[in-house]
């Protein structure tokens, strides 16, 4: 995984979606050491959410926090995530001392590949979280995880 500063990622004509962002990108390695077979977006953290992260947790290591959020998302139960996506519910991804409250976006990219990303709306520290804002449920069986689903549609 790595982090990429990007311009607008999702093409929706809404000011929120026109923000710059940092994207956590995942990749699957090939048999040739050090090379990749394919890569995919995992978590989009728009500038506003990143700013809230730094405002509410000034000493945060944003790199570690974003990787933690991305790994939680990939480990999440795909059925829980799909239900949340269809119902437009927020999922809470653990990120350092708090949670990234994220919207799930699924759709085709410019190469007509199906993508599923978690797009952070904001960041709250643990003390700010409401009782029902709990970290997204991890899959008990890794074959039921978001990562497994991403693997199937690559």
């Amino acid at each position, binding site marked *: 995984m790595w982090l990429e500063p990007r311009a607008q990622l999702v093409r929706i004509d809404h000011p929120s979606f026109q923000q710059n962002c940092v994207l956590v990108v995942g990749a699957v*390695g090939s048999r040739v050491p*050090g090379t*990749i077979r394919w890569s995919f977006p995992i978590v989009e953290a728009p500038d506003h959410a990143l*700013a809230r992260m*730094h*405002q509410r947790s000034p000493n945060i290591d944003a790199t570690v926090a974003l990787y933690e959020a991305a790994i939680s998302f990939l*480990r999440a139960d795909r059925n829980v995530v799909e239900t949340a996506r269809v119902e437009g519910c927020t999922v809470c991804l653990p990120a350092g001392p708090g949670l990234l409250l994220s919207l799930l976006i699924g759709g085709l990219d410019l190469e007509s590949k199906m993508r599923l990303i978690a797009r952070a709306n904001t960041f709250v520290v643990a003390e700010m979280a*409401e009782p029902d804002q709990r970290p997204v449920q991890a899959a008990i069986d890794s074959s039921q995880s978001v990562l497994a689903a991403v693997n199937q549609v690559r």
Partner: protein
Amino acid sequence: MGAAPRERELEKAWRQHQPERARVPLEARRAVREFKARIAPDADRISARSREVRFSSSMIGRRRARLGGNGNCSASEKRLPLPRLTVRAALYS
């Protein structure tokens, strides 16, 4: 009974949609700029190398297509130097 979580969040977002309150402090925005400047060189390196991988792969693909069948390319072509990437985090580690 309270509103559903989604409705409550929408309601809260509308209440908070006041330019003054929604504004993030200058220091936070500066921290974001610095964070992005820190990660940019690595992202550029990976992006450039990933383009090289695609290019190398397509070269092999074209060569194999030209030779026909399932790729009777020479051993040296199979060993085309592919760039190395630094993986920053491991899944399920």
